[in-house]
Protein backbone atom coordinates (compact mmCIF):
# COMPACT_ATOMS: atom_id res chain seq x y z
CA UNK A 1 0.00 0.00 0.00
CA UNK A 2 1.35 3.37 -0.96
CA UNK A 3 1.82 5.69 1.95
CA UNK A 4 0.84 9.29 1.66
CA UNK A 5 3.63 11.58 2.72
CA UNK A 6 2.68 13.97 5.46
CA UNK A 7 4.70 17.12 5.75
CA UNK A 8 7.23 16.56 8.50
CA UNK A 9 6.72 20.02 9.90
CA UNK A 10 3.04 19.30 10.52
CA UNK A 11 3.72 16.23 12.63
CA UNK A 12 6.88 17.34 14.38
CA UNK A 13 4.96 17.99 17.51
CA UNK A 14 6.38 19.99 20.39
CA UNK A 15 4.41 19.30 23.52
CA UNK A 16 3.13 22.42 25.26
CA UNK A 17 2.93 20.65 28.63
CA UNK A 18 5.61 20.66 31.31
CA UNK A 19 6.87 17.10 31.69
CA UNK A 20 7.63 17.18 35.40
CA UNK A 21 6.25 19.46 38.03
CA UNK A 22 9.01 20.92 40.15
CA UNK A 23 9.41 19.37 43.56
CA UNK A 24 9.90 22.82 45.06
CA UNK A 25 6.28 23.76 44.43
CA UNK A 26 5.10 20.49 46.03
CA UNK A 27 7.22 21.04 49.12
CA UNK A 28 5.97 24.62 49.31
CA UNK A 29 2.35 23.41 49.36
CA UNK A 30 3.01 20.88 52.11
CA UNK A 31 4.92 23.42 54.15
CA UNK A 32 2.14 25.97 53.73
CA UNK A 33 -0.46 23.49 54.90
CA UNK A 34 1.69 22.56 57.89
CA UNK A 35 2.15 26.20 58.77
CA UNK A 36 -1.59 26.74 58.46
CA UNK A 37 -2.29 23.83 60.76
CA UNK A 38 0.25 25.06 63.29
CA UNK A 39 -1.68 28.34 63.47
CA UNK A 40 0.60 30.76 61.61
CA UNK A 41 -1.44 33.78 60.59
CA UNK A 42 0.22 34.53 57.24
CA UNK A 43 0.15 30.94 55.97
CA UNK A 44 -3.59 30.84 55.27
CA UNK A 45 -3.35 34.06 53.28
CA UNK A 46 -0.42 32.67 51.30
CA UNK A 47 -2.32 29.47 50.58
CA UNK A 48 -5.34 31.40 49.32
CA UNK A 49 -3.16 33.73 47.24
CA UNK A 50 -1.26 30.83 45.70
CA UNK A 51 -4.27 28.76 44.64
CA UNK A 52 -7.09 31.25 44.02
CA UNK A 53 -6.23 31.61 40.33
CA UNK A 54 -6.28 27.86 39.70
CA UNK A 55 -9.56 27.29 41.53
CA UNK A 56 -11.21 30.31 39.95
CA UNK A 57 -9.99 29.30 36.49
CA UNK A 58 -11.43 25.79 36.78
CA UNK A 59 -14.74 27.16 38.07
CA UNK A 60 -14.92 29.86 35.40
CA UNK A 61 -14.10 27.51 32.51
CA UNK A 62 -16.63 24.98 33.77
CA UNK A 63 -19.53 27.34 34.54
CA UNK A 64 -18.83 30.07 31.95
CA UNK A 65 -19.98 32.67 34.47
CA UNK A 66 -17.79 35.07 36.43
CA UNK A 67 -20.20 35.61 39.37
CA UNK A 68 -20.83 31.87 39.70
CA UNK A 69 -17.10 31.15 39.48
CA UNK A 70 -16.40 33.71 42.22
CA UNK A 71 -19.04 32.26 44.52
CA UNK A 72 -17.82 28.72 43.88
CA UNK A 73 -14.19 29.70 44.49
CA UNK A 74 -15.22 31.21 47.78
CA UNK A 75 -17.12 28.05 48.68
CA UNK A 76 -14.10 25.93 47.77
CA UNK A 77 -11.82 27.87 50.10
CA UNK A 78 -14.39 27.80 52.89
CA UNK A 79 -14.47 24.03 52.49
CA UNK A 80 -10.66 23.93 52.43
CA UNK A 81 -10.66 26.01 55.60
CA UNK A 82 -12.99 23.57 57.32
CA UNK A 83 -11.36 20.38 56.05
CA UNK A 84 -7.67 21.22 55.91
CA UNK A 85 -7.01 18.76 58.71
CA UNK A 86 -8.21 15.92 56.50
CA UNK A 87 -5.41 16.55 53.99
CA UNK A 88 -2.63 13.99 54.41
CA UNK A 89 0.63 14.91 52.69
CA UNK A 90 1.59 11.23 52.36
CA UNK A 91 -1.60 10.29 50.49
CA UNK A 92 -1.21 12.69 47.56
CA UNK A 93 -0.48 16.18 46.42
CA UNK A 94 -2.26 19.20 47.83
CA UNK A 95 -3.14 20.34 44.30
CA UNK A 96 -4.88 17.03 43.64
CA UNK A 97 -6.76 17.26 46.94
CA UNK A 98 -7.76 20.86 46.23
CA UNK A 99 -8.80 20.12 42.64
CA UNK A 100 -10.85 17.11 43.70
CA UNK A 101 -12.63 19.28 46.23
CA UNK A 102 -13.24 21.92 43.55
CA UNK A 103 -14.48 19.34 41.08
CA UNK A 104 -16.90 17.81 43.59
CA UNK A 105 -18.33 21.23 44.34
CA UNK A 106 -18.67 21.95 40.61
CA UNK A 107 -20.50 18.70 40.00
CA UNK A 108 -22.86 19.46 42.90
CA UNK A 109 -23.44 22.90 41.42
CA UNK A 110 -23.99 21.43 37.96
CA UNK A 111 -26.66 19.05 39.28
CA UNK A 112 -28.31 21.79 41.31
CA UNK A 113 -28.59 24.17 38.34
CA UNK A 114 -29.63 21.58 35.77
CA UNK A 115 -33.19 22.91 35.54
CA UNK A 116 -32.03 26.51 35.05
CA UNK A 117 -29.82 25.48 32.15
CA UNK A 118 -32.66 23.57 30.48
CA UNK A 119 -34.61 26.82 30.07
CA UNK A 120 -31.52 28.76 28.98
CA UNK A 121 -30.68 26.28 26.19
CA UNK A 122 -33.51 27.64 24.02
CA UNK A 123 -31.95 31.10 24.19
CA UNK A 124 -28.58 29.56 23.28
CA UNK A 125 -30.02 28.07 20.09
CA UNK A 126 -31.23 31.45 18.87
CA UNK A 127 -27.93 33.15 19.72
CA UNK A 128 -26.03 30.39 17.88
CA UNK A 129 -27.67 31.44 14.62
CA UNK A 130 -26.45 35.00 15.08
CA UNK A 131 -23.02 33.70 16.03
CA UNK A 132 -22.61 31.80 12.75
CA UNK A 133 -23.36 34.83 10.59
CA UNK A 134 -21.22 37.24 12.60
CA UNK A 135 -18.11 35.09 12.82
CA UNK A 136 -16.71 35.48 9.34
CA UNK A 137 -13.85 37.64 10.66
CA UNK A 138 -12.47 34.73 12.68
CA UNK A 139 -11.40 32.71 9.68
CA UNK A 140 -7.97 34.33 9.51
CA UNK A 141 -6.92 32.27 12.50
CA UNK A 142 -5.26 35.24 14.17
CA UNK A 143 -7.43 35.62 17.20
CA UNK A 144 -6.78 38.01 20.01
CA UNK A 145 -6.35 36.34 23.40
CA UNK A 146 -9.59 37.63 24.79
CA UNK A 147 -11.58 36.57 21.76
CA UNK A 148 -9.93 33.15 21.82
CA UNK A 149 -10.91 32.84 25.46
CA UNK A 150 -14.53 33.71 24.71
CA UNK A 151 -14.68 31.27 21.80
CA UNK A 152 -13.21 28.54 23.95
CA UNK A 153 -15.74 29.25 26.69
CA UNK A 154 -18.62 28.95 24.22
CA UNK A 155 -17.19 25.74 22.78
CA UNK A 156 -16.55 24.20 26.21
CA UNK A 157 -20.21 24.61 27.11
CA UNK A 158 -21.13 22.27 24.24
CA UNK A 159 -19.24 19.42 25.89
CA UNK A 160 -20.73 17.01 28.40
CA UNK A 161 -19.55 17.65 32.00
CA UNK A 162 -17.32 14.53 31.96
CA UNK A 163 -15.47 15.60 28.82
CA UNK A 164 -15.41 19.25 29.86
CA UNK A 165 -13.83 18.65 33.24
CA UNK A 166 -11.21 16.33 31.73
CA UNK A 167 -10.23 18.86 29.07
CA UNK A 168 -10.09 21.70 31.60
CA UNK A 169 -7.92 19.75 34.02
CA UNK A 170 -5.47 18.63 31.35
CA UNK A 171 -5.37 21.38 28.75
CA UNK A 172 -5.93 24.41 30.92
CA UNK A 173 -4.69 23.36 34.34
CA UNK A 174 -1.99 21.05 32.95
CA UNK A 175 -2.43 18.33 35.55
CA UNK A 176 -0.89 14.92 34.93
CA UNK A 177 -3.01 11.94 33.85
CA UNK A 178 -2.60 10.08 37.13
CA UNK A 179 -3.62 13.22 39.03
CA UNK A 180 -6.71 13.67 36.87
CA UNK A 181 -7.49 9.96 37.30
CA UNK A 182 -7.32 10.44 41.08
CA UNK A 183 -9.46 13.56 41.00
CA UNK A 184 -12.15 12.02 38.79
CA UNK A 185 -11.80 8.58 40.35
CA UNK A 186 -11.46 6.82 36.99
CA UNK A 187 -8.58 4.84 35.39
CA UNK A 188 -5.90 6.68 33.43
CA UNK A 189 -7.06 4.99 30.21
CA UNK A 190 -10.52 6.51 30.69
CA UNK A 191 -8.95 9.93 31.22
CA UNK A 192 -7.05 9.65 27.93
CA UNK A 193 -10.10 8.37 26.08
CA UNK A 194 -12.25 11.22 27.43
CA UNK A 195 -9.53 13.67 26.55
CA UNK A 196 -9.41 12.50 22.92
CA UNK A 197 -13.17 12.68 22.60
CA UNK A 198 -13.35 16.02 24.38
CA UNK A 199 -10.69 17.57 22.18
CA UNK A 200 -12.30 16.23 19.01
CA UNK A 201 -15.72 17.61 20.02
CA UNK A 202 -14.13 20.89 21.00
CA UNK A 203 -12.48 21.11 17.57
CA UNK A 204 -15.87 20.58 15.91
CA UNK A 205 -17.49 23.21 18.13
CA UNK A 206 -14.71 25.70 17.36
CA UNK A 207 -14.98 25.04 13.63
CA UNK A 208 -18.70 25.73 13.84
CA UNK A 209 -17.71 29.15 15.18
CA UNK A 210 -15.53 29.63 12.06
CA UNK A 211 -12.28 29.17 13.95
CA UNK A 212 -9.52 27.72 11.79
CA UNK A 213 -7.47 25.20 13.76
Amino acid at each position, binding site marked *: MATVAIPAAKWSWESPYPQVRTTNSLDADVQLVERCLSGQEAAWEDLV*RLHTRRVYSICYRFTNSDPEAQDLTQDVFLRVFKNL*RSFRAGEGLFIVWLTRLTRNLLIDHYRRTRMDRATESIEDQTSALEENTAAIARTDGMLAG*REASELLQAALQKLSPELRETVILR*DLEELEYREIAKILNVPEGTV*KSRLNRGRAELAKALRRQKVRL
Partner: protein
Amino acid sequence: MTCAEFEILLCDYVDGTLRAEEKTALESHLPGCAACKQLAEDVMGVTAFFERVPQAEPPAELMTRILHHAPRGPGAIAERLPSDPPRSWGKRIFGGIFQSWLQPRYVMGMAMTILSFSMLARFAHIEPRQLRASDLDPVKVWQGIDDHSHRVYDRAMKYYDNLRLVIEIQSRLQEWTNDPSQNGAAPGARTSERGSQK
Protein backbone atom coordinates in the same frame (compact mmCIF):
# COMPACT_ATOMS: atom_id res chain seq x y z
CA MET B 1 -1.11 -0.40 14.47
CA THR B 2 -4.88 -0.54 14.94
CA CYS B 3 -7.11 2.48 15.43
CA ALA B 4 -7.70 1.51 19.08
CA GLU B 5 -3.96 1.38 19.72
CA PHE B 6 -3.58 4.69 17.93
CA GLU B 7 -6.18 6.31 20.18
CA ILE B 8 -4.44 5.01 23.30
CA LEU B 9 -1.10 6.46 22.22
CA LEU B 10 -2.46 9.74 20.87
CA CYS B 11 -2.40 11.58 24.21
CA ASP B 12 1.23 10.60 24.81
CA TYR B 13 2.03 11.65 21.25
CA VAL B 14 0.53 15.07 21.88
CA ASP B 15 2.53 15.28 25.13
CA GLY B 16 5.74 14.30 23.31
CA THR B 17 6.39 11.38 25.65
CA LEU B 18 6.28 8.53 23.10
CA ARG B 19 9.37 6.44 22.39
CA ALA B 20 10.88 6.86 18.92
CA GLU B 21 9.59 3.53 17.57
CA GLU B 22 6.07 4.14 18.90
CA LYS B 23 6.08 7.59 17.37
CA THR B 24 7.13 6.17 14.00
CA ALA B 25 4.44 3.47 14.16
CA LEU B 26 1.78 6.04 15.05
CA GLU B 27 2.77 8.42 12.29
CA SER B 28 2.87 5.61 9.74
CA HIS B 29 -0.75 4.71 10.69
CA LEU B 30 -2.05 8.18 9.83
CA PRO B 31 -1.84 8.24 6.02
CA GLY B 32 -3.90 5.05 5.65
CA CYS B 33 -6.69 5.98 8.11
CA ALA B 34 -8.72 9.10 7.42
CA ALA B 35 -10.64 8.90 10.72
CA CYS B 36 -7.48 8.71 12.84
CA LYS B 37 -5.88 11.45 10.80
CA GLN B 38 -8.88 13.69 11.38
CA LEU B 39 -8.81 12.85 15.10
CA ALA B 40 -5.11 13.68 15.32
CA GLU B 41 -5.62 16.96 13.50
CA ASP B 42 -8.52 17.90 15.74
CA VAL B 43 -6.64 17.02 18.91
CA MET B 44 -3.48 18.86 17.94
CA GLY B 45 -5.40 21.80 16.52
CA VAL B 46 -7.26 22.22 19.80
CA THR B 47 -4.08 21.78 21.84
CA ALA B 48 -2.43 24.52 19.78
CA PHE B 49 -5.54 26.68 20.19
CA PHE B 50 -5.24 26.40 23.98
CA GLU B 51 -1.84 28.09 23.68
CA ARG B 52 -3.57 31.21 22.40
CA VAL B 53 -6.02 31.30 25.29
CA PRO B 54 -4.88 33.43 28.21
CA GLN B 55 -5.35 32.25 31.76
CA ALA B 56 -8.59 33.20 33.44
CA GLU B 57 -7.64 35.79 36.04
CA PRO B 58 -9.79 36.16 39.13
CA PRO B 59 -10.83 39.68 40.12
CA ALA B 60 -8.61 41.28 42.75
CA GLU B 61 -11.39 41.58 45.31
CA LEU B 62 -12.07 37.85 45.26
CA MET B 63 -9.13 37.05 47.54
CA THR B 64 -10.26 39.71 49.99
CA ARG B 65 -13.74 38.18 49.98
CA ILE B 66 -12.34 34.72 50.64
CA LEU B 67 -10.12 35.93 53.49
CA HIS B 68 -13.00 37.97 54.90
CA HIS B 69 -15.20 34.90 55.08
CA ALA B 70 -12.56 33.09 57.08
CA PRO B 71 -11.68 36.05 59.29
CA ARG B 72 -10.16 34.12 62.12
CA GLY B 73 -7.43 32.84 59.84
CA PRO B 74 -5.36 29.78 60.48
CA GLY B 75 -5.74 30.22 64.22
CA ALA B 76 -9.24 28.81 63.77
CA ILE B 77 -7.85 25.77 61.97
CA ALA B 78 -5.30 25.26 64.71
CA GLU B 79 -8.06 25.48 67.31
CA ARG B 80 -9.64 22.37 65.81
CA LEU B 81 -6.43 20.42 65.85
CA PRO B 82 -6.07 17.58 68.32
CA SER B 83 -3.71 19.76 70.34
CA ASP B 84 -6.28 19.89 73.16
CA PRO B 85 -5.56 17.58 76.09
CA PRO B 86 -6.99 14.13 75.34
CA ARG B 87 -10.30 13.34 77.00
CA SER B 88 -10.44 10.64 79.61
CA TRP B 89 -11.95 7.23 78.77
CA GLY B 90 -14.92 7.94 80.98
CA LYS B 91 -15.68 11.16 79.12
CA ARG B 92 -15.15 9.49 75.75
CA ILE B 93 -17.62 6.68 76.51
CA PHE B 94 -20.27 8.48 78.56
CA GLY B 95 -19.74 11.82 76.85
CA GLY B 96 -20.41 10.18 73.50
CA ILE B 97 -23.45 8.21 74.66
CA PHE B 98 -25.15 10.77 76.89
CA GLN B 99 -24.10 13.93 75.13
CA SER B 100 -27.11 13.85 72.82
CA TRP B 101 -29.44 13.10 75.75
CA LEU B 102 -28.22 16.10 77.69
CA GLN B 103 -29.45 18.57 75.14
CA PRO B 104 -32.09 20.99 76.51
CA ARG B 105 -34.94 19.66 74.36
CA TYR B 106 -34.39 16.08 75.53
CA VAL B 107 -34.09 17.16 79.17
CA MET B 108 -37.30 19.19 78.87
CA GLY B 109 -39.10 16.30 77.20
CA MET B 110 -37.95 13.90 79.89
CA ALA B 111 -39.09 16.28 82.65
CA MET B 112 -42.54 16.63 81.06
CA THR B 113 -42.87 12.84 80.78
CA ILE B 114 -41.96 12.34 84.44
CA LEU B 115 -44.42 15.06 85.46
CA SER B 116 -47.22 13.49 83.41
CA PHE B 117 -46.59 10.05 84.90
CA SER B 118 -46.45 11.43 88.44
CA MET B 119 -49.78 13.25 87.90
CA LEU B 120 -51.31 10.06 86.51
CA ALA B 121 -49.96 8.06 89.45
CA ARG B 122 -51.33 10.58 91.90
CA PHE B 123 -54.71 10.47 90.18
CA ALA B 124 -54.70 6.65 90.26
CA HIS B 125 -53.67 6.64 93.93
CA ILE B 126 -50.36 4.95 93.32
CA GLU B 127 -47.79 5.88 95.92
CA PRO B 128 -44.33 5.62 94.37
CA ARG B 129 -42.70 5.25 97.80
CA GLN B 130 -44.70 2.15 98.73
CA LEU B 131 -44.97 0.82 95.21
CA ARG B 132 -45.10 -2.96 94.83
CA ALA B 133 -45.12 -5.09 91.72
CA SER B 134 -48.77 -5.99 92.31
CA ASP B 135 -49.70 -2.30 92.22
CA LEU B 136 -48.73 -2.15 88.58
CA ASP B 137 -51.34 -4.76 87.64
CA PRO B 138 -53.43 -3.10 84.87
CA VAL B 139 -56.70 -4.24 86.48
CA LYS B 140 -55.70 -2.71 89.78
CA VAL B 141 -54.56 0.49 88.10
CA TRP B 142 -57.84 0.71 86.20
CA GLN B 143 -59.90 0.07 89.34
CA GLY B 144 -57.92 2.76 91.15
CA ILE B 145 -58.56 5.28 88.39
CA ASP B 146 -62.26 4.33 88.23
CA ASP B 147 -62.67 4.56 91.99
CA HIS B 148 -60.88 7.88 92.13
CA SER B 149 -62.88 9.35 89.29
CA HIS B 150 -66.15 8.38 91.05
CA ARG B 151 -64.97 9.96 94.26
CA VAL B 152 -64.06 13.15 92.44
CA TYR B 153 -67.46 13.19 90.74
CA ASP B 154 -69.28 12.66 94.05
CA ARG B 155 -67.27 15.39 95.72
CA ALA B 156 -68.02 17.77 92.90
CA MET B 157 -71.76 17.02 93.07
CA LYS B 158 -71.84 17.43 96.85
CA TYR B 159 -70.01 20.70 96.60
CA TYR B 160 -72.48 21.89 93.96
CA ASP B 161 -75.51 20.93 96.11
CA ASN B 162 -74.05 22.58 99.21
CA LEU B 163 -73.28 25.68 97.26
CA ARG B 164 -76.87 25.87 95.99
CA LEU B 165 -78.20 25.49 99.56
CA VAL B 166 -75.92 28.19 100.91
CA ILE B 167 -76.96 30.59 98.18
CA GLU B 168 -80.64 29.81 98.86
CA ILE B 169 -80.26 30.44 102.60
CA GLN B 170 -78.40 33.66 101.97
CA SER B 171 -81.10 34.89 99.58
CA ARG B 172 -83.85 34.04 102.12
CA LEU B 173 -82.03 35.86 104.92
CA GLN B 174 -81.70 38.83 102.61
CA GLU B 175 -85.46 38.75 101.94
CA TRP B 176 -86.24 38.64 105.70
CA THR B 177 -83.91 41.53 106.34
CA ASN B 178 -85.68 43.58 103.70
CA ASP B 179 -89.25 42.56 104.89
CA PRO B 180 -89.48 43.11 108.75
CA SER B 181 -93.30 42.31 108.89
CA GLN B 182 -92.66 38.56 108.44
CA ASN B 183 -89.87 38.40 110.99
CA GLY B 184 -92.14 36.87 113.71
CA ALA B 185 -93.79 33.86 111.96
CA ALA B 186 -91.55 33.09 109.08
CA PRO B 187 -88.38 31.79 110.76
CA GLY B 188 -90.15 28.69 112.11
CA ALA B 189 -91.82 27.90 108.83
CA ARG B 190 -88.59 28.47 106.99
CA THR B 191 -86.69 26.22 109.39
CA SER B 192 -89.21 23.39 108.89
CA GLU B 193 -88.90 23.85 105.12
CA ARG B 194 -85.17 23.66 105.38
CA GLY B 195 -85.41 20.52 107.52
CA SER B 196 -87.65 18.80 105.00
CA GLN B 197 -85.23 19.77 102.25
CA LYS B 198 -82.33 18.18 104.08
